[in-house]
């Protein structure tokens, strides 16, 4: 089965709900706005680079932690909570709970590609990063308690997108979408 499948709808909705709500407009309208001349070139300091890398690592760690928990058949979210919060954590935690309730677990290892960074904000000292990536659950199947492969849809390469934010000093995935088979570009 496509083990990522159950994540698809819910997580996508969560991500869309987040989109467009991130602006922090100035509290009062300025009567004669000085149109910003082009911003001074943001630097790519080693610090900023390390922050973006830490965000990407949180995404990778989260997916790997989810795979480990799912293969173990547990609904313990301690590891997930290290790398995720908000809707991303909720969706993954529900997935583990659902599997456990049905007596299902996973076996094998999905492919998890290093994601591409698509958003970095603020440019000089990032606290929010967005990525898109691909996962492949061809070799990561769900089994029921009697050891048979579950039957809940196709498996294959799926596109992902995630938002990762720095919360209280730690990078955490705050929204996560894993889409249907065939949505991974390239």
């Amino acid at each position, binding site marked *: 089965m496509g083990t990522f499948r159950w994540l698809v709808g819910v997580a996508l909705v969560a991500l869309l709900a987040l989109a*467009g*709500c991130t602006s*922090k*407009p100035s509290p009062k309208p300025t*009567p004669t706005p000085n149109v910003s001349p*082009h911003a001074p070139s943001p630097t*790519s300091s080693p610090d900023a680079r390390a922050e973006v890398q830490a965000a990407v690592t949180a995404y990778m760690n989260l997916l790997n932690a989810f795979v480990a928990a799912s293969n173990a058949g547990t609904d313990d979210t301690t590891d997930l909570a290290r790398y995720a919060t908000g809707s991303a954590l909720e969706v993954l935690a529900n997935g583990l709970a659902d599997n456990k309730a049905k007596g299902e677990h996973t076996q094998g290892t999905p492919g998890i590609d290093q994601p*591409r960074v*698509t958003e970095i*904000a603020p440019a000089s000292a990032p606290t929010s990063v967005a990525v898109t990536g691909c996962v492949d659950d061809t070799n990561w199947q769900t089994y029921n308690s009697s050891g048979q492969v579950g039957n809940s849809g196709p498996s294959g390469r799926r596109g992902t997108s995630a938002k990762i934010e720095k919360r209280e000093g730690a990078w955490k995935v705050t929204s996560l979408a894993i889409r249907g088979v065939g949505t991974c570009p390239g």
Partner: protein
Amino acid sequence: MSRLNRRLASVAALVFVASVLSMPAPASAGGWGKVDCSKEPTNPQCLIEVGTPGAPGSPGSKTTSTCKDGIGRVVPCYVPGAGWYGGDGCYYQPATGTDLAAAEALGGVASPPGRWYVGTCGYPPTASLTRFRVFGTPPGPQLLADEAVRALRLPQPVIRVNPAPPADQIVHLPTWVWLGPQSWGRRTATASVPGMSVTATATPVRLVLSTRTAGGASASVTCQGPGTAWTPGRDASSPSPTCGHRFTAPGSYPLQVTVTWNVSWAGGGVSGTAPAMTTTAALTLRVIEEPALNVRTR
């Protein structure tokens, strides 16, 4: 049409103005830069004009839309010197030079056709609030494309059937199905701001006819085009060459048609596609045994 042409002409003139203004703005910005849309929501710079051309027999429509920030405040869709609104509270222009180098150092090379943009956030955009973002489609055309696609008005399919209700369908005789004249054909809508215009086009590509079998199972057939209109004098026993059904038992049957429309858009130097749309209509047909010919019981 002539009104459209005039508008296109003025758009072309404004392209020049816009390109001049998009150069790094001097400290005292041009007149457009002083527009605060929350105070002047009817200012042309704050509006996206959205229009659909008249279909045969119906007038076109022309409305306006606006760009809004995260708290619903109307903001310009384009700010000279800062770029196009990205839907996230920031204005974006392509990253070049040191900006591009910085973005790539942080996030890697963008995967084509995506490219890095530098965003200036808030309104008015604040130089100290910058961000990098990859756009596959440039934000300006994308924004107008979204509006144009939203403005598409697709016709509700008009179902035509032979034998024409209230006459009943006859068991084993072919039922012809086709769509009324306004149900099938290209529809367009255009969204524009001064300097740019994007047109979305919906093209009907598939008509699917759904009903159910005598056993209650669903049955559907994909027709060619909008079906073929029945004309008097045809052989009643010959099936429609493009779209129809043959009922095999008397009863009451639902008949649903679904038209699928492919949606594409073009403008601002780029083009793209949007998710397909569908329109549907349904009616109920009564099917009876063939009455004995030439015999009328009174």
